[in-house]
Each structure stands twice: as C-alpha cells, then as structure tokens.
C-alpha cells in the first residue's frame, strides 16, 4: 500500500471521527437500538390476553365452563361484567381483548340435551392480540364442542368409549419450526436493530461525495492531483470496515448475551453483513453523488433507508405483496439482506440457496458504484466547463 493511500485512509478515519454527530450515531446508534428493542420485546410472547366472561346463567355448568376458560393457556380472565353492554364498553375502551358470553339457561339446556350457543367476541383492532386470541378461542371451541357432543352421545345410550372415539381418534399435533416458542424477540429484535444500523451506515455513506465537495479542502485535494477513483476507494474501504466493526457488538450482544438464534454461525453472518455494508456504502455514494449538498444527500439516503424495512418482508411477507412491488423491493439491498438474514439466522439453508443473496448484494453494489462514478465525472465536467 502506497503512502498516498495510507494518507487517504487516515484522512477518512479522521473525517468520520471529527464529525461529532456522525461519530455518536455510528458508535451508539445500533447498540442503543438493540437494547431498546430488547426492552420492547422483553415479554417475547403474548400469553395473558385480557379476557372478560359474562355469565348470564350462574349455574354449576356455567361455573365449570368459566373455570375451564380461566385455566386456558393464553387467556387471562380479568373481568366478569354483568351484562353484554358492559362487555361492549370494556372492549371498546380496550380494557379487554376477548369476551365470552354464556347465555341464560346454559346449564339447563345442556342437561336436557338442547342446543345452546356461546358467543366469543374478539377485538380485531390490534392484530397481534387478535390472531393469538382467535387461535385460543378456536381451541376452546373444539374442546367444548367435543365434550358436549360426547355427553350427548352418552345420553343417547352410546358407550362412553365409542362416543369418545367418534370425536377424538385423530389428533392434530402442531409444531412450529425454527422458532418453536413463536418468540417475537427472536423474530424482530436483531432485524430491527440492524435496520437502525443500516440507517446509520447510509447516513455516513451519504457524506462520501457531498461531504468532500462541500468543503474547502476539496480544492486542495483536486489541486494535489489525487485520482478520484483512489480517493473514493479509500473512503469506501474505511467506511465499510467501520460499518462492520459497528455491527459486531450488535451481533455479540444479540447472540451471546440474549441468545437470539444464529443457526448459520457467526462467520457466515459476518461475511453476509460485510457484503451488505459494501452495498450500503455504494447506495450512499450514489445518493451523495446525486445530491447538491450533505443535507440533501442524507435526505435522499433516508428516503430509501426508511421504507426499506416495510418492503423487506419483515412486517408483511414479500410473497404477499403485488408482483410489481416485489420486483421494486428487490432493487434495494435492504430487501436482500433482511430476507437473507432471516434465512441465515433461523434456517441456514446452505450455500446453494444463499448464493443468490450474496450475488444480488454484489450486483447492486457494482451498479451503484458505476452510476455514482458517471455522476461524479459528469459533475466534474460541468464544473470544469463552467470554470473555463
């Protein structure tokens, strides 16, 4: 490595370090993010869904049912309103998410073998609660129907074992793969923290060109006769190394301290992250070369970085988006990274499958650097022409 390159590398390190806000953002942004998201998802799963039971019957049978619901996993009975209207108000105010109404004469109807209908109400306004509550209610519905059916069959003179066999010979075993506890912290914390990290990286990379040309020292650099390729290559190397170094404690904290799964192993993940850092640097350089000044460059970069998480398939599956949007989302390196991250950390499907993610990030970096080079050359030509 020549002395000139060493000087340029050292200069870039100093440039990042002297920009106080950027320094703090890079050093602490992702770390604070990982701790924040761990605190948000510290409960990990939604279990005690607030539930109310309106018992309009007050019979022994209804009390048995109430007791059964109280012991159900995922539902936590916290209120016993006296009427349907009270339940309605409770749900509207967000006091409970689920309400179960036991009708009048419930016990008598069961005893006489008459049909009776329970009502379950779920507040669908928060889907995190609603999907869990809905599953819990479906399980209760099946159990209650089967128990009542068996009792009725026995009442009709059918042997208990035959009655039980009519209902319960098939058992559907549920097995969630890759994240058996359906843990939200495993699913989201690392991805969200890395999303903040990629935003910090983009902010830093956006200074690559705009940060230089906006300074007086730019004239000195031009006068010194440095090749633009060498200058920006040195800047890119320093930034990519810095980005990877900043990501390291995030992985260490998430993996070692908080046991977030990383099935692919640390090295593969680091290599994938390094490649993503290169593509982020290329996107930042491109934005920087198109912008008039550093503020505009940051805005351009963030206009891409902000919605990328929604597009990346973490909050809504990529496959469920319209076809044209799937193609658009794949233009962004963030989509490839977060999809790849999910596969690597949970499934580790092997190089055959993952190679496309590595190659896509590389291709995006090549395209962005090429366009940025053209834009920088064009700008220089314009400045020279204006000068002459």
């Amino acid at each position, binding site marked *: 490595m020549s002395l000139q390159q060493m000087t340029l590398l050292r200069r870039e390190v100093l440039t990042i370090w002297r920009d106080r806000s950027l320094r703090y*953002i890079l050093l602490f942004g992702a770390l604070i993010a990982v701790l*924040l*998201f761990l*605190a948000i998802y510290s409960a990990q799963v939604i279990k005690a869904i607030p539930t109310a039971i309106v018992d309009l019957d007050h019979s022994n049978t209804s009390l048995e049912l109430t007791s059964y619901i109280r012991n159900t996993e995922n539902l936590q009975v916290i209120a016993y309103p006296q009427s349907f209207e009270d339940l309605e108000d409770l*749900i*509207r*105010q967000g006091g409970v998410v689920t309400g179960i109404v036991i009708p009048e004469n419930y016990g008598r109807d069961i005893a006489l073998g008459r*049909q009776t*209908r*329970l*009502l*379950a*109400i*779920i507040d*669908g*306004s*928060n889907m*995190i*609660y609603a*999907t869990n509550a809905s*599953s819990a*209610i*479906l399980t209760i519905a*099946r159990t209650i*129907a089967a128990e*009542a*059916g068996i009792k009725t*069959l026995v009442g*009709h003179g*059918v042997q208990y074992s035959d009655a039980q*066999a*009519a*209902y319960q*010979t*098939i*058992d559907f075993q*549920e097995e*969630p793969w*890759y*994240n058996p506890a*359906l843990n939200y912290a495993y699913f*989201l914390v690392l991805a969200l923290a890395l999303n*903040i990290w990629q*935003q910090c990286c983009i*902010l830093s990379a956006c200074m690559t060109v705009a940060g230089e040309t906006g300074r007086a020292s730019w004239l000195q650099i031009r006068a010194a006769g440095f090749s633009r390729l060498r200058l920006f290559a040195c800047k890119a190397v320093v930034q990519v190394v810095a980005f990877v170094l900043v990501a390291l404690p995030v992985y260490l904290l998430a993996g070692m301290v908080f046991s977030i799964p990383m099935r692919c192993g640390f090295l593969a993940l680091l290599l994938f992250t390094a490649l993503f850092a290169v593509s982020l640097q290329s996107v930042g350089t491109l934005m920087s070369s198109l912008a008039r000044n550093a503020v505009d460059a*940051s*805005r351009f970069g*963030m*206009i891409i970085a*902000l*919605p990328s998480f*929604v*597009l990346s398939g973490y909050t*809504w599956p990529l496959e469920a988006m*319209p076809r044209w*949007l799937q193609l658009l989302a794949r233009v962004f390196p963030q989509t490839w990274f977060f999809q790849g991250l999910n596969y690597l950390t*949970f*499934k*580790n499907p092997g190089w055959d*499958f993952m190679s496309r993610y590595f190659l896509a990030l590389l291709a995006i970096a090549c395209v962005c650097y090429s366009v940025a080079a053209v834009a920088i050359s064009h700008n220089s030509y314009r400045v020279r022409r204006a000068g002459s």
Partner: protein
Amino acid sequence: MRQVWGIAVYEVMHILKDRTLMLMVFLVPFLYAALFGAVYASGVLTGIPLGVVDLDHSALSREVVDTFGNAQHFQVVPAVATYQELERAMATGVVRAGVIIPVNFEQQVSEHRLSQVELVYDSSNLIWGYNIRRYALTVINQFYQTHAAANLIGLGFTGKEINDILDTVSLNTEIWYNPALNYCNFLFPGLILLILHQIGLLSIGLTVTREKERHCWLHYLGSAIPRWKIVAGKCLPYFLVNFCNYALLLWLASSFLNVDIGGSLPLIILLGALYDVIITSAGFAISVRSSDSLVVTRVLMLLSIPIFFSSGFTWPLAYMQPLLADLVRLMPYPWMAEAFRLVSQKGAGAGVIAVNLLVLGIMACLSLFFALNFSKRLNSWRVRPQDFYCNDHARRVSETGGVSC
C-alpha cells in the same frame, strides 16, 4: 397580522425554491403512503404454500389433504411428497406449512386408536407463523366436525340427530372492528400518522437551522418583530400543509385502500389539529435550538422505526418493560395513535379518549411554550461579518468556507 403573513410568504417561497424540501412536504407523504398501501393492499394472507407428506395414501388421508387443499387460505404444492422434500422446501421458503400424515393412519382410526397428524409451519417470520396457525385451526375444527359426523352415521344416527349432537354447544366467534383481521386496517392508519410525524418534524426542523446557515437568522433576532409572530409566520405554512396531508391521506386510505376510518369527524379533526400543533411547534423548538441542519436531519430520521415499534401500536405497551412504557408515554405518537384507533375503528366518543385529548393538549401547550421561548438577545448567537449579508454572496462564502473570497 401583516408581519406574520410576510414571514409565512417568505417561508413558502423557501419551500418552493428548495426542490428537495418541496418534494418532502408535498410529495413524499403521498409516495410513502402509496408504497405502504401497496405493501398491505392484500391485507390477508391467502394461497399459503402447503406441502403434504401423505405416507398412508388412504381415503381418509386424502380427506385430510382435501380439507386443507380446499381451504381458502392454503394452496397445496404438489412438488413436495416426502419428509426430506418438506424439510428442504420449508428451509428455502418454497412452502410455509406442511401436513404429515403417518403410515397406517386410516387403519388406526378405524380401530379407534389415536392417530397423530402433524401440522408444521414456518415461524421464522411470525406474520406467517401466527396466521398459518389460526387458519390451520379453523380447517382442523372443520375437519373434526365432518369426521365426527361420518362416525355418527356409522353409529346409526340420522342426519337431523347428527346436526343436533354436533351443535349441542357451539361457540360463535365474532371479530369486532376488523372482522377480516386485515393487516391494512390494522397498520395503515398508524403508518400514516408516523409519516406525518416524521415528515412534519423534518421539514419544519430545518426552518431556523437553514436561516442560521445562511446567516439570516440574525435579522429575525435583531428585528422588532415579537417572538410569537416569528413562530406563527414560520409555522403557519407547515401547519396548513401538514393538516391538508392528514386529511388527504386519510381520505385516500379510506377511498382507495378501503381502510375502515369511521367515528366522529369532529373528533378526528380535533385530534389531527392537536397532533399537527405538537409536531409543528416541536419541530420549530428543535430547529431554533440546533445549529446544524445535518444533525437535525440525521437524528430525526433515525427516530422513525423506534417510535413506531415502541408506541404500543403493534406490540402492546403492557408487555414492555415498565420504565420503557412510561418513557414512551412522553411522546405524542402513542397517544395520538391510540386515540385515532379508538375513534376511527371503534367509534369511541370524547369520553373514552378524554385522557388522550388531555395529554395531547398538554403536549401541544408545552411544545408551543418551548417554541415561543427562544432567546432574542444578539449575544446569544455568534456574530460574524458575513452574518450581516443575506444574499447569494453570503451563502457562497458560507458554503465554500471562505475559499471563493
């Protein structure tokens, strides 16, 4: 009023002259809303790829497969036939769920021995995981009913008797406020409020820093114009544009994405106005205390994701660390998002959201207080020769750091 109007017109000219700012104020909110709208347009997961490993190949196993195959939300992928293929397909995302029917399944059932069918699903992404679980439970309940009915026929019951027995106790489930459990209804209003929050803060957050960088803020400080007029004039354009964006985005969401936005219109307007006052005045207060547009841009942009995910809009506040939940309540977004959901989706009245209105009102007063209380003393600001110029020359001097001189 003429002074306020003059400052407001000057600010509008700035917005129109700065192309990036103009795009951010007028276009980016709609661009983001259109993008997020397109993402959540389908709202409900359908055609979930399902792999079936049928090791029995009997009439009963085909019945199980058909029940899943005919379900609205699942689509059987024929390429998967063995357990290894299912494992590989799950690992590569070709299928997201699988049903494994064991050998001798039908025989065991006919002998009244308990037989296990395994339902596996991909929970690496919990949007898939939880929805597949819910849909699968619906299908399983339906299968149980059909299967029990078939068994009862075997026991010699008539059709009417079977219906009576199966319906002895039925649990009717009603889902209120979002009956189809549509993700667009759930997330889109919250995302609109976040877009307004961030774009609003970011545009007005640069209004004073820009003046400082162009060395024109000194003229405001040195003038006899009272502070409230400076704040009013500077904030007015952003307040109006933000409010128009709020109304337009809600109308677009309701008209084109069929997002359920009902409830009391005056309450929705009141909430929007309070939220807008908070954003605009907080943005001004941040701007007046910052020296650098770049720092404001960087910090405000980084806040978007943490604000949304910590707000309780998706993950309930009750499940967060108590200290964090208390800190979150210091921000306007969680109160606004909660109140907006209560009014627009649940049709809540002023009584139900009284606390939210009160807190938002207090926040509006506080942010106005901080916006209005900036120092107008000249020595509070570093004065340099070029600060007395407010023209292209001064700007050129500042941008080139003196080189062009």
